């Protein structure tokens, strides 16, 4: 039941914790407040994380990475997120898509890109499906003609020509390598006409559009990817031609969200404030604080359990999906309560401390991040065991 981490694994978690508290937390709130969306990401922190081996955390040992299992990935991302959720997500996205880069690429692709990915401390990864007209459609794999991404890819000699726009892409504008999904048989359903391409940022015709300003998670760039006759070399076809949907179907580890990082920070801030300003003597604040503690412990345990099972025969993707729903709701409530315990200042900027309102704005992103909670439930529903099958 306990993490039971190896000493090496514990060390990675400790490193993440140290950087989060010593380097990220002191700068995060001011960046959140004062920086423009396209400039808020702290690259110097990314360098530190890389130097600590945390950017390549999930790269298998044979390629020079740490080869972390899902549980360690979840714990490290949560620790980073204590400092700032946006920074954590920039790494977490990279952790998730590392698997694609290291295990599902062709030898040619690995020869071309893997060394660079390992050596460039700022090489982050992103995956792009969402477009203005299709968000939940793609997430739920609504398999009807016309539904899903509209970006097209056409073969032209030794190149694929990609045209269209993606948006709300985490790490969009930050990442160096993108897994981009486009229609290769636009008249067909997604299951029959969607293909993935590995697109380096410097590819001709690939531009970063607007960096959206957001309610929270403002240190992370959620970029628009504008592809205008973007020329992707033929060897960068990723996976099967028209086989894009099956890749998406396998991508569920994103459900192991680091939402408890900001939630723990909010709890710490609230506890300290309550004990200092006298609220801790009142029953309402005592109940509120213990509930916060409860929700954090329940959510962390659930997330860790889902992560632990991920490498086991007992893995169950609906456990991973629903732990995301649960943890996001729990985190939002924890952070909101922390604001209340701070009193009037709980909804305002505060010079001397990271304000709990930033934690709350940040974690609200998980109402839609990795699928809206309602969509995640609908995605999990068909995975429920049929009547009569013992699920326990």
């Amino acid at each position, binding site marked *: 039941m306990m993490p039971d981490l190896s000493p090496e694994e514990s060390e990675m978690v400790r490193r993440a914790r140290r950087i989060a508290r010593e380097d990220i937390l002191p700068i995060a709130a001011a960046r959140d407040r004062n920086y423009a969306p396209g400039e808020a990401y702290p690259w110097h922190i990314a360098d530190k994380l890389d130097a600590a081996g945390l950017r390549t955390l999930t790269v298998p040992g044979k390629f020079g990475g740490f080869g972390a299992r899902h549980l360690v990935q979840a714990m490290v991302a949560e620790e980073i997120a204590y400092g700032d959720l946006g920074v954590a997500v920039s790494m977490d996205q990279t952790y998730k898509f590392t698997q694609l880069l290291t295990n599902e690429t062709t030898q040619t692709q690995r020869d071309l890109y893997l060394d660079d990915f390992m050596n460039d401390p700022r090489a982050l990864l992103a995956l792009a499906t969402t477009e203005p007209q299709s968000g939940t459609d793609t997430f739920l794999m609504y398999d009807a003609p016309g539904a899903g991404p509209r970006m097209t890819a056409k073969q032209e000699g030794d190149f694929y020509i990609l045209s269209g726009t993606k948006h709300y892409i985490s790490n969009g504008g930050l990442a160096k390598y993108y897994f981009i999904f486009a229609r290769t048989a636009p008249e067909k359903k997604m299951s029959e006409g969607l293909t993935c391409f590995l697109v380096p940022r410097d590819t001709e015709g690939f531009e970063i559009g607007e960096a959206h300003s957001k*309610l929270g998670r403002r240190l992370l760039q959620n970029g628009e990817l504008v592809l205008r006759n973007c020329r992707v070399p033929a060897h960068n076809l990723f996976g099967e031609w028209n086989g894009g949907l099956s890749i998406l179907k396998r991508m569920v580890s994103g459900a192991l969200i680091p939402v408890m990082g900001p939630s723990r920070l909010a709890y710490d801030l609230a506890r300290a404030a309550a004990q200092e300003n006298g609220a801790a003597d009142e029953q309402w604040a005592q109940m509120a604080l213990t509930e916060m503690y409860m929700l954090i412990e329940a959510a962390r345990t659930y997330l860790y359990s889902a992560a632990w099972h991920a490498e086991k025969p007992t893995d169950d993707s609906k456990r991973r999906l629903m732990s995301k729903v649960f943890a996001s709701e729990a985190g939002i409530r924890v952070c909101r309560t922390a604001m209340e315990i701070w009193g009037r200042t709980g*909804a305002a900027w505060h010079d001397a401390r990271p304000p709990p309102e930033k934690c709350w704005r940040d974690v609200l992103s998980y109402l839609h991040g990795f699928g809206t909670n309602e969509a995640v439930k609908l995605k999990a529903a068909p995975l429920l065991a049929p009547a009569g099958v013992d699920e326990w």
Partner: protein
Amino acid sequence: MDFASGEATLALQGLARDFARQEIAPLTDALDQEKDPEKRFPGEVLDKGDALGLRTLSVPESLGGGGAGLLSLSFVAEEIGWGDLGVGVIYAQDWALAIAVSRLWDEAGFAAFAENFVQDHALHLAHVRTAATPAPEDKSPYPSDARQGASIEKDGDGLRLSGGARHVLNGAAAGLFLLESDSANENERRIFLLENRDGSGVEVARYHDPMGMRACPDVDLRFEDAQPGHPLDCAEEKWRDATHALRILPASAAVGCARKSHEHAHDHARERVQGGKPIIEHQTVGYMLCDNLMELDAARRSLQAAAWAAEHGEKAEPWRSFLAKAFATESCERVARRAMEVWGGAGYMTEAPMERLVRDVVAFSHAFGMGHAARSAAMGLL
């Protein structure tokens, strides 16, 4: 019992609705994104509103005001809050505090107050609450409402006020404060008017930078030998009854704000197609819209019932305005959050209307007595 609004109310509501759409909303979106809290005051909007008679709506017609009752004002507040919650709160304070003065002062006193208030077109009112004990220097990195406070000392026939007050809404531009100096010892409790003008000993010590409701400045004040005006009736029960409007009207403005986010969600749900049909036809979304309608209506009705009771002096249930405020505020938060969820990821972006509205209603929850404070006050009255 009759849920139809009278003609006068409908006319006021219509006036406020047009003003909110045509004047308030276009101007205040920019104020929300203004980085400098000192530059967010919506002076231009308020000047226009004053020309419509909005500022003095709660002053009796005989004294030159709009003569609107509390229940009518709750309709108007909702419309103004739809336009902008910060503006709604500024007006709500103007209305509620004029009502409070009318109940806490004698007829002649109130008439003098009203004359001044009606004539000075830029005069707004704000509520200040301090502890009777002056604040020790606040070195804690944590916030504490308890630490605010000001000492009041006799000075000849009058009084002198020194100290500070934290988180005064519209505390910079308001020209007149209703100051409530609270104390555990009821004999030391004082309520009076305090002028805020050059040389009056009142200064803005700090502009807060709140996450929402930004058109209404949230400031800390410093008092140095400020001279309080005429003391008002400060009996606990009297004060409670005189300030029902100070809980009800701001909350009505918050309902307007939440309603706006729901309207945006409803529109979006009709247009956005996923899964082969408009998302409003999916139960996931349709149910959220239903829940919003339920809670908006329940919040509005609770506030209206409290407003009616306060207008009719229903003293038997003094807890009503506290709980209606808490219920409405918490409902509004849920409504705004659902509205954001209906928009999916797009709702999280600053370009979406609900990104601001959700911040506004949550910031509002922290003002005029939070949920626990309202419950604590109410449970003592059960």
